[in-house]
């Protein structure tokens, strides 16, 4: 059996093969864009963000004056999430522990005679002071091309506070901000 081949067909055939191969590859490959991003709060941003908070606590009047106050028992309360993002239990604990578990903060608390209570085995009433952390956020959506919403910016405000239980007086407070931006169609 003879096989035929047409000179004119060669470029058309090659073009067709290339096009078909492209079709096959594109139809099988895509499961999500590498350009996808979101403006959710990232724990990776936390260390840098809370550096000022730690420094503020270490140098605070609360720590300086603690030795004169008698026994100071500090208990960390769970993070209050007032943001537009969700947090797992471990992430909530991290927002608190990034401040209180810092070596510098631990040393300062110990030297001031402040005892940190374990929330797992103590009740709020066991403490003389409570440590609260709260996160809020504001989201803004916009359009780079003035058509569909394809840009979002979330600004997160982290607020930390120590309150004396007996008087409800604020013994120390500090805050820090983190901003996250993302591009790409929000709906898609």
């Amino acid at each position, binding site marked *: 059996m003879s096989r035929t081949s047409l000179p004119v067909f060669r470029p058309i055939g090659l073009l067709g093969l290339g096009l078909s191969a492209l079709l096959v590859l594109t139809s099988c490959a895509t499961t999500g864009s590498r350009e*996808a991003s979101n403006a959710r709060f990232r724990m990776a941003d936390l260390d840098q963000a809370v550096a000022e908070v730690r420094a503020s606590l270490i140098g605070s009047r609360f720590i300086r004056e603690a030795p004169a106050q008698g026994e100071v028992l500090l208990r960390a309360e769970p993070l209050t999430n007032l943001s537009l993002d969700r947090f797992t239990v471990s992430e909530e604990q991290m927002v608190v522990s990034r401040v209180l578990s810092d070596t510098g903060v631990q040393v300062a608390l110990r030297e001031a005679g402040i005892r940190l209570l374990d929330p797992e085995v103590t009740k709020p009433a066991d403490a003389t002071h409570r440590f609260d952390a709260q996160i809020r956020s504001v989201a803004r959506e916009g359009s780079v091309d003035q058509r569909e919403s394809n840009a979002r910016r979330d600004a997160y405000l982290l607020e930390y506070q120590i309150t004396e239980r007996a008087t409800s007086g604020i013994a120390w407070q500090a805050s820090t901000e983190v901003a996250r931006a993302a591009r790409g169609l929000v709906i898609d």
Partner: protein
Amino acid sequence: MLARFAPFRLPVATVGAALLVCCALTLAGCQSGYTPDPGTAAMLARGDTSRARVDLALRADDPKAGRERLLYEVQAMHAALLDGLPEAASRRVEYVFDTLRTQGLNANNSPDLFLVNEQGVRFWKGEPYEQAVALSLVSIADMMTGRWGNARAAAIESLQRLNADDDSRTAEFLLGRLLAGVANRQMGRAQEAAEHFDAARAASDRVRALADELEHGTYDALLVIEAGRSPARTASGGDGTEVVFRDRSPSNAKGLRVSDASGSALWPWTTDLNAMARDHRWTGLDAGRRSKAAAGNVLTAGGIAVAASSDDSAAQLAGAGAALIGLIAKSNARADSRYDDLLPQRFYLAPIKMGIEPPALSVESSGSSLRPVGLRPNEDGSLAVRLLRWPETSTTGWAESGQVFYANDVTGPLETPTLPWVLGGRCVRTPTRALMAEYRRAGLAESVSYEDLMELYRAESIDLLQGRDQSQARGHVLEGGSTLFTPQGGSIGFTRLFGQFHTTYTPTSTQGRALSLLVSPTITTTEESP
């Protein structure tokens, strides 16, 4: 230039075959990886949330889920919540929220879209209404586990997905608005809660009394009740380029009658997905589809005309090639028909005051009723939230029995002591040393220790799951599965499992048969199904 190709003389038959194979592969690759499964929908319709949960979890965890991963994850999450197992949904809740918050998932697909069908290239993210409802389910999941800050975030995000900041949009998606109000109230944020409830009242008189109750009432449980089936998404028009939603359950104004410890109330539906599907569509791809179909038509017609009119074999082949490409373009212009077929047609919200008797629910003039059993106040005093689906088909009586026939970890013991299930009794509580005294009163020999009983569960290959371990739940032993757990009281899973009798268990292991002999035969008689 052509001379360069001279050494590569391609036989016509080879090239033609290769083209055909590539086209076939392309078309195969373009097919949707998702086909609605009537079996799963039927399971949910008859309240078999456990089997649906297990089936959907397998699909969601399949590495081949690919572009439909989010769709499967939403469905698996949904079934786990309906089954009263938020722990089994927790991993999926994280995935669903994170993926829906991610922008530009399909940003790189635009060039491919010209060549390939939408379903073959686009990651499924759902229509705006599907995204809003999925985020509401995330909010409900967080409410079921008492994570109110997260519930508030997800509810507000669901509103943003529809830009629901005006009355008309709020009126269509009152579910998200009311959930945001409830979450804020639970967090002690009365002012923000009032803003959401005010917006709901302003948007629709229909929910005025409901919003008042949710804002000021003394309810201690909230039931979110789904009914009917969401509209089906189909490709319509000449080349299938138009998206059309076809109602599967008709919209109507039927309310939900609720009888509880505080009396009787009639609550309206809050959200109708038939209306949302019509009004909250993303139309960003419509023009592209029409253009692709038009280009395909031109190429096909032109190619056929050239091939038919020319005597030159090369021109004939070129015409045939153009016609083939045109046909592919036409077929690829078809609209994406993937949708979440397991969503309901409507949502009700029913605030409940818990009493000794389980609440009784009935949809107006439907003739059927539902009595979710085992609803208990949360230990921390917060609102108990459950997601229920109205059974569409016969439920063999469990939905209306209002009784608990098995000792379990939520409602505790039965009136008379009973043996563990694994020894032919009706106790499906997680074994403890304290429970052994009750088992002995039910006829278990003194010589059988707690360790013997635990060994028996191991020998029978039954996994005991509590707390976070419930994320590993498969089928329940009462229904022929190999895991023993207690779903949240008041859920469909709990009501179905414990509100009807099941076949008595007979141990199969050597240890089980040996221990069975140590049970007093006079006390171990178990009740048969009525």
